[in-house]
């Protein structure tokens, strides 16, 4: 059981409002991802939930009880740190066992729990090693093992994959998702990588400057971003924002078109443009173009397209996939 509810959680450092007041509901068993650019307060919010920072104001309810003033260990949460924060002088076994030892569990219980965690995470052969003798991915698994054995109400992950190389990151992403399906425990995961957010989350919380911009399922955020910030942050490559005549024609201040929702033609179309750079990836092609009178745009076309620098092309956005925004950047609904 691990339902977490934040009520008007506020954090100030001196005169700086890091988190001006956040309300959020996290259901039991949900995989929630906090995503946002660096410095948006996502890690601070996680640390507030963990109890590593004191809240300035507001309530943090875990299963209905306010824990805002409880010590971290009393909250029944486990955390996986970006740096793993393994204890370097202890073996993997002792690292995983440390929390249980502090909780005063008997030797037999510790042995059993550590062994079962090691089995889940494929660490059985490494239990007697020290962290310095492990690879990045193995260290990551030890950090997760340390979190699992305490049987927490929720797991907190603070950018756990950012120290791994790209290939390993994809693997660990799958492993963590698999772990969530197996354990069905609430997980809160902080990342600045929107791909991780999209692939792993049941629910994404997009943060900017300490404010929650939008909460929703990945596809909701992708299809119906509440504002320009979310629209630009979710999806890769970034959404194109166009003003001027094209927007006026659609009764709004600015329109947003995702690179993948634009058809490319060499003969005719709505927006004439010139190719600046073409990135050929095989499965798809990214065209960085200069649209006449509108500025730079990105287009993502499937398959191989034989286009290169200086080629003249015509772009036609999918009409029902155009996002409209008012002067304050708020979404007006699809046209």
């Amino acid at each position, binding site marked *: 059981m691990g339902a977490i509810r934040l009520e008007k959680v506020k954090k100030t450092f001196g005169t700086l409002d890091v988190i001006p007041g956040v309300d959020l509901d996290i259901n039991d068993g949900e995989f929630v991802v906090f995503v946002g650019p660096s410095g948006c307060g996502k890690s601070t919010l996680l640390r507030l939930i963990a109890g*590593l920072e004191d809240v300035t104001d507001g309530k943090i309810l875990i299963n209905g009880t306010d824990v805002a003033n409880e010590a*971290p260990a009393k909250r029944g949460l*486990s*955390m996986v740190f970006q*740096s793993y924060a*393994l204890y370097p*002088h*202890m073996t993997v076994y002792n690292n995983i066992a*440390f929390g249980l030892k*502090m909780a005063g569990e008997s030797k037999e219980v510790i042995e059993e729990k550590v062994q079962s965690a090691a089995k889940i995470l494929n660490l059985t052969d490494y239990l007697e090693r020290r962290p310095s003798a492990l690879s990045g991915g193995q260290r990551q698994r030890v950090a997760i093992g340390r979190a699992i054995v305490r049987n927490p109400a929720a797991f907190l992950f603070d950018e756990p994959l950012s120290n791994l190389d790209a290939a390993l990151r994809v693997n660990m992403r799958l492993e963590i998702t698999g772990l969530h399906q197996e354990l069905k425990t609430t997980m809160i995961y902080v990342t600045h990588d929107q791909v991780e957010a999209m692939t792993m989350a049941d629910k994404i919380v997009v943060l900017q400057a300490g404010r929650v911009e939008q909460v929703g399922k990945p596809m909701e955020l992708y299809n119906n971003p509440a504002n320009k910030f979310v629209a630009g942050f979710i999806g890769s490559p970034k959404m194109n924002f166009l003003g001027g005549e094209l927007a006026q024609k659609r009764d709004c201040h600015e329109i947003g078109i995702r690179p993948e929702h634009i058809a490319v033609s060499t003969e005719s179309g709505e927006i004439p443009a010139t190719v600046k750079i073409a990135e050929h990836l095989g499965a798809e092609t990214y065209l960085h173009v200069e649209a006449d009178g509108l500025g730079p745009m990105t287009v993502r076309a499937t398959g191989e397209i034989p286009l290169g620098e200086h080629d003249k092309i015509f772009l036609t956005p999918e009409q029902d996939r155009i996002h409209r925004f008012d002067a304050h950047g708020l979404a007006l609904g699809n046209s």
Partner: protein
Amino acid sequence: MSTRASTLTGRIMSAPSIIVLFLWMAVPLGMTIYFSFLRYNLLSPGMEEWIGTLNYEFFLTDPAFFASLANTLLLVGSVLAITVVGGILLGLMLDQPIFGRGVLRLLVIAPFFIMPTVNALVWKNLLMDPVSGMFAWIASLFGLPAIDWFTNAPLTSIIIMVSWQWLPFAVLILLTALQSLDRDQKEAAQMDGAGPISIFFYITLPHLSRAITVVVLIETIFLLTVFAEIFVTTGGGPGLATTNIAFLVYTQALLQFDVGGASAGGIVAVILANIVAIFLIRLIGKNLDK
């Protein structure tokens, strides 16, 4: 340094300093070893003669030798214990964001820059003097009799003085080690339910083990040869109460004018220091390999 010519040039250029350094060490050591096998007393010059190991026999069977050996070990051990424990505690304090930390750090480091003779004089005349000393004055405030430190607790007094002198070194090394402790580790331990005391013993202390090793090794080297503090305050007494090996060698050579005996004592001290060094490196030096 790749061609044969440049290697040769390098050797020729560095040779003078290496030769000087070697002679600097080898000549005094060789002369000391040679003297230690002579009957060589400054009161009867020109009467030097080879007497084999007799000097060593006298030195090693002298009751003063065992007393000063015990004093040396007690002095080194006590000062090490005080500076390491005190250094950790002070380091922990100075690592906290307390008011006036910058000034405090400076004050803690200060004693290290005071030369041993001055240190000894300050303690002897200003602090521990039974008539005009600060401690006597404090005792009088409470109506207590003044303690005559150098008469009643001579070795303890020396230990206090030397500890005061070496505490800053320990604090300096241990504080930098504390500052390099990853904050995430402490937080992870906090999440794991460890309180401040558990965090200290399970996280902080193991992290400090290398720094403690460095402090112990370096301090031991210098503490085996403590001399100025003893010379200035107690002169090795009362009796032999504060005579360590270094001071014993001094009394042999310059108070009894027995150069041969003092040389033998010096060689014994060198051998003892090496035994301690080997022992220490075996025992804790492996901490440095990590």
